[in-house]
């Protein structure tokens, strides 16, 4: 190649290097396609419960949902959402969807862009201040609920602005966490343990029913209008019996109609997870099954033999065996029980059997659980301080007077224990020759050497066997 040709090439390469540049404008389309496709959504929307009226100086975390490509399922779209407000808005929103309302009233448009998809919603920032809860549901239609079920409620509040104009709208996400829910029994006004109302960190409110009967619900909250604590009017609610039966099942069961507890035995340190299943009577005469673990009452007899704890969502009870070769009884009730309960807010789990109150609607179920001995996975055996392999000849260099065994068991919970002196460990000499090569001594793990030959000792422990074979010179 001539130097001229080489120079041509170098010049051309330099030309390309300088001239070529990235097609940034073309990238956007392909990037947006990948962004949307990665979530497998074909359209986006704001959830039905999205707040469209926001109190001044309050914060609301907006959420976007996507319709999956199957046209049925929806998914929360978390990443890569671009949030923006219409021009001139005093309120602000960050890229996590956290909206901060201005300190004056205004109307604006909130836009969420995900890939090439975009959705907008009109928001009104209102100066009206919360006064009190006036309804438990927007449509005020009420609801029916049976024992041990739950129901979403959407409290509606009365708001009033500085001109005295009244707004009746869903309680905003700030106020909803300031509400103290009071529940009393309708017949005598006493504090009720028939139901509890829970407000989640996602601003959802659930009524959990624990026993049948009529209750009165009140919402107590600070009125931002007057600065005084205001208790709402009475909201009457009936909790029906509606329950045909209850039973215990394994937490892995999906067919709640036919499920049972398949394995009622666990080893020490192993966990069995149980759920409570209720069979309900529908209004049309049919029956249906629900996981009612969260709103049922659980009791463990002989609870010292096992430790029990609800899962984080309280949809199952996890029981861990603590004491080998012991038994526990798990009892389950839905409805009124005889035992006294101090606090029902974190679920009911007593260290005694639960039993139904004869004056209340109640269904009962129970299950015996046996905590069995740890199973042995392997043995570590030493003869006169030399490691021995199961059923493999150990050749000794010289003839000892005695053979002393040292036995360690390795258990299924990854623990190990020296069991040489354990009364459950049996040593058997397997005859191999006449006269005998070894014989027992007072100590079960020590054997006297009598003659030259092959000595065999069988070890038996918790159903497992180990054969020691030693060739004695």
């Amino acid at each position, binding site marked *: *190649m*001539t130097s001229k*040709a*080489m120079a*041509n*090439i170098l*010049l*051309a*390469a330099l*030309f*390309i*290097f300088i*001239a*070529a*540049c*990235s*097609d*940034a404008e*073309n*990238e*956007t*389309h*392909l*990037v*947006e*396609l*990948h*962004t*949307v*496709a*990665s979530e*497998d959504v*074909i*359209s986006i929307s704001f959830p039905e419960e999205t707040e469209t009226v926001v109190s001044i100086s309050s914060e609301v975390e907006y959420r976007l949902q996507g319709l999956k*490509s199957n046209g049925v399922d929806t998914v929360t779209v978390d990443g*890569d959402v671009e949030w923006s407000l219409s021009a001139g808005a005093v309120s602000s929103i960050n890229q996590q969807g956290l909206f901060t309302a201005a300190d004056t009233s205004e109307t604006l448009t909130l836009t969420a862009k995900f*890939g*090439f998809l975009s959705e907008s919603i009109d928001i009104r920032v209102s100066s009206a201040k919360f006064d009190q809860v006036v309804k438990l549901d927007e449509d005020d239609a009420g609801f029916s609920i049976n024992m041990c079920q739950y129901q979403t409620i959407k409290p509606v509040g009365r708001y009033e602005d500085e001109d005295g104009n009244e707004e009746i709208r869903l309680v905003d996400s700030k106020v909803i966490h300031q509400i103290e829910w009071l529940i009393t029994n309708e017949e005598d006004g006493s504090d009720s343990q028939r139901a509890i109302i829970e407000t989640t960190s996602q601003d959802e409110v659930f009524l959990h029913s624990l026993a049948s009967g009529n209750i009165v619900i009140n919402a107590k909250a600070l009125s931002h209008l007057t600065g005084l604590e205001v208790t709402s009017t009475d909201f009457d609610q009936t909790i029906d019996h509606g329950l045909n039966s209850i039973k215990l099942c394994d937490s892995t069961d999906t067919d709640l109609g036919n499920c049972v507890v398949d394995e009622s035995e666990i080893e020490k340190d192993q966990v069995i997870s149980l759920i409570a299943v209720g069979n309900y009577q529908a209004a049309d005469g049919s029956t249906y099954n629900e996981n009612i673990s969260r709103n049922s009452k659980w009791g463990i007899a002989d609870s010292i033999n096992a430790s029990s704890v609800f899962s984080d969502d309280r949809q199952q009870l996890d029981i861990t065996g603590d004491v080998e070769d012991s038994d526990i009884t798990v009892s389950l009730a839905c409805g009124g029980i005889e035992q006294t309960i101090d606090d029902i807010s974190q679920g009911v789990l007593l260290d005694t059997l639960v039993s139904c109150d004869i004056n209340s609607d109640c269904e009962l179920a129970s299950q015996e659980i046996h905590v069995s001995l740890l199973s042995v996975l392997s043995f570590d055996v030493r003869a006169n301080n030399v490691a021995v392999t199961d059923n493999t000849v150990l050749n000794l260099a010289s003839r000892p007077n005695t053979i002393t065994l040292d036995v360690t068991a390795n258990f299924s919970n990854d623990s190990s224990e020296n069991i040489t002196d354990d009364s459950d460990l049996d040593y058997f000499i397997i005859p191999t020759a006449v006269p005998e090569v070894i014989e027992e001594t007072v100590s079960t793990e020590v054997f006297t050497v009598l003659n030259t030959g092959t000595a065999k000792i069988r070890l038996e422990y918790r159903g497992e066997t180990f054969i020691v074979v030693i060739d004695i010179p």
Partner: protein
Amino acid sequence: MKYLLHFYYLFLLFLFSSPLSADNFYIEGSPAQVTIDTSGGETRPKMLDLRVGYVKSMHQFELAIMTSVSDDELNQLTVDVPSAVSVLYHYLPFVDSDIQLHLIVGASQIEVDSSYPGTADSSDSFQGVSFGIGFEESFSAMPQLKMSADWIRLYHGDEMNITAFSLGVHYDF
């Protein structure tokens, strides 16, 4: 596109104006996996990579043409690369070594077709600087025949990259 055409022209001018001997030419063929890597996800269509070039001492000049073998899907997104054309310069810093290392620079034009439910099918074209690294080793029984492996960033963008990995055979005339 016009820059690439300029370079094709210069490349051909070089090939036919230089005092070349036939045993300096080569051809190369390989399957290639192209990765389109965006901030939102990635797709990996497969292609056939055909190359012709000229090697002189520590320098190698080649034209690479890739055609689609199969598209790739990310959920409902279908992405295909019907064609990619590159003009590449390879610098071989260790010519006496059994395994040749290639440092690669050049320019590429890549066509990308995509389709997604609810949107019109589209075709985008990307042009830009390419760079990469490759390895090559001769078969001892037939020194003209070599195994080659290349990783080339065909397009390096602000929000996305297009990369080709190819593993094939190289024949020196």
